[in-house]
C-alpha cells in the first residue's frame, strides 16, 4: 500500500516539476493521436457521407462490417499496418516502421471505422426533409454532403472526439509499429506498459494520471458538445 502512496507522491512531483521525460512523452502522444484523428476525419467524414447518401448493393453489409470494426483489436490494426510497412511489405520502401509516422498510420486505421460509423449516425439524425430541400435547391452530391455535415456538425464532432479518445488510449498498435523507442516513438500508453514491467511505478502513475486527465478533457468536451 505504501508503494502505491509513494508512487502517487512521486508522480505528482514529476508532473509539478514538469519532468522533461514526462512532458516529452505526453507531447508525442498528443502529436501522434491528433495527427491520426485529423487524417482519419478527412477520410472518414466524406466516406461516411458517401455511404449515407448513395444507394448501392450491399450497403447494409458494408455498414455492418464498419460497425464490427469499431471493436477492431488494436493489435490487429497494428499487425495489419506492420505487414504493410515492414521491410518486406508493399510499403516497406518508405521506411515507416518504428517511426511516429508509422504510428500515425496505425492509429488512423484503428479509428477510421469508428469515425465513419459516427458520421453515419450523425447524418441519419438530419431530417430527410432537409436533405430533400438541399437537393431540391440544386446542390450537387458534394454540396449536399457538405451542407448536411455542417447541419450535423456537433454530432460529427462528438465522433471525432471519440476517435481521438480511442487513438490516444490504444497501446497494441503503437507498441508493434512504433517499437517504444525512448525519445522517439515512446508514448503514454507504451511508456506505462514498459515502466510498470520495469518496476518504475511512480513514472507509470504519473503518465497514467496524465492519460486520465486527457481522457477527462475529451469526455467533458464530448458532454459539452452533446449538450448544445
Amino acid at each position, binding site marked *: 500500500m505504501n508503494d502505491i502512496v509513494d508512487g502517487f507522491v512521486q508522480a505528482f512531483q514529476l508532473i509539478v516539476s514538469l519532468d522533461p521525460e514526462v512532458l516529452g512523452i505526453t507531447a508525442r502522444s498528443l502529436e501522434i493521436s491528433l495527427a491520426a484523428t485529423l487524417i482519419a476525419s478527412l477520410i472518414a467524414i466524406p466516406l461516411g457521407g458517401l455511404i449515407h447518401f448513395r444507394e448501392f448493393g450491399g450497403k447494409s453489409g458494408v455498414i455492418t462490417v464498419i460497425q464490427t470494426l469499431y471493436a477492431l483489436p488494436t493489435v490487429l490494426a497494428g499487425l495489419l499496418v506492420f505487414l504493410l510497412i515492414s521491410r518486406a511489405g508493399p510499403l516497406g520502401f518508405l521506411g515507416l516502421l518504428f517511426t511516429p509516422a508509422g504510428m500515425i498510420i496505425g492509429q488512423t486505421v484503428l479509428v477510421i471505422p469508428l469515425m465513419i460509423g459516427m458520421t453515419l449516425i450523425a447524418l441519419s439524425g438530419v431530417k430527410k426533409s432537409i436533405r430533400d430541400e438541399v437537393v*431540391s*435547391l*440544386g446542390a450537387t452530391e458534394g454540396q449536399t454532403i457538405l451542407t448536411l455535415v455542417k447541419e450535423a456538425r456537433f454530432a460529427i464532432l462528438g465522433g471525432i472526439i471519440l476517435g481521438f479518445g480511442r487513438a490516444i488510449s490504444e497501446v497494441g498498435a503503437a507498441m508493434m509499429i512504433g517499437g517504444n523507442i525512448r525519445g522517439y516513438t515512446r508514448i503514454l500508453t507504451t511508456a506505462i506498459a514498459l515502466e510498470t514491467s520495469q518496476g518504475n511505478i511512480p513514472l507509470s502513475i504519473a503518465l497514467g494520471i496524465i492519460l486520465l486527465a486527457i481522457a477527462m478533457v475529451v469526455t467533458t468536451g464530448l458532454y459539452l458538445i452533446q449538450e448544445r
Partner: protein
Amino acid sequence: MIEFSHVDKSFGEKVVLRDLTFRVEKGEIFTLIGPSGSGKSTILRLINLLDDPSSGTVSFDGQDTAVPNREKVGMRRRMAMVFQKPMAIRGNVYDNVAIGLVFRKEKGAGIKNRVSEALALVGLSGYEERKASTLSGGELQRVAIARALAMNPKIMLFDEPTSALDPEMIKEVLDVMLALANEGMTMVVVSHEMGFARAAASRVIFMDEGRIVEQGQPDQLFDAPKEERTKIFLSKVLQI
C-alpha cells in the same frame, strides 16, 4: 413546360400514381387538390426529380428527366420547390435565402442583391441578420419562398405551403403566392386552400388514389363538378 406521359409510381408494394398523363404550360397556375395520399406531393417530387417514375416519362422543357444525376442537378436548378415544412439551416435569414445561389457558385455582390430583392418580394426586407431559428412559421415559409425566388426559377412548385402554419400566418403566405401568380410565374401548387385555388389557379386537378378524377378551370370544377367523387370531396372540404 412539364409533361407527364403514362406515369406510374410505386413505393414497394404501394402504388401511388397510376397511368398519369398531363401537361403544364408556361404561365399556368396548375393546382392539385384531393384527399391525403392521393399522390399530389409525389407529382411534385417527380417534377423536381427527387424521385423517378416507376414507368412512363416525365419531361421538363421537352427533355426527358430520366438522365444521370449530374444532368438532374442542372434541371433542378431551373425550378424551385417550396415544401410543406420549410427548412431552416443553421445561420441567419441571409444564409437561408442565399444557399441556392451559393450552390450555383454565384458571386458575393450578386448574391447580396438577389437576396435583398427576394426578401423584399415576400415582405421581409431588413430580415437578413435575423437568426432563422427565431422566425415564426409564416416568416420561415416566406423565407423559403424568397429562397426559391432568389434562384430566378422558370417554374415554382408548392407542396401544401400553408398546411403546417397557424391560421393567422396562412394569409401572409397566400398573399405572396397570389402576387407571384399575378406576375405570370408558372406554378404547380398542391394545396388544401380552396380559396387560393379558386382565386389564382388557371387549372384545377382533382386527384384520388393516384389518378386524375377530374380537371378544369376553377369555376367549372368548384361550381359544377361532373364526377361524383369530386362532388363528395368538395362537399366535405368546402363545408369546413
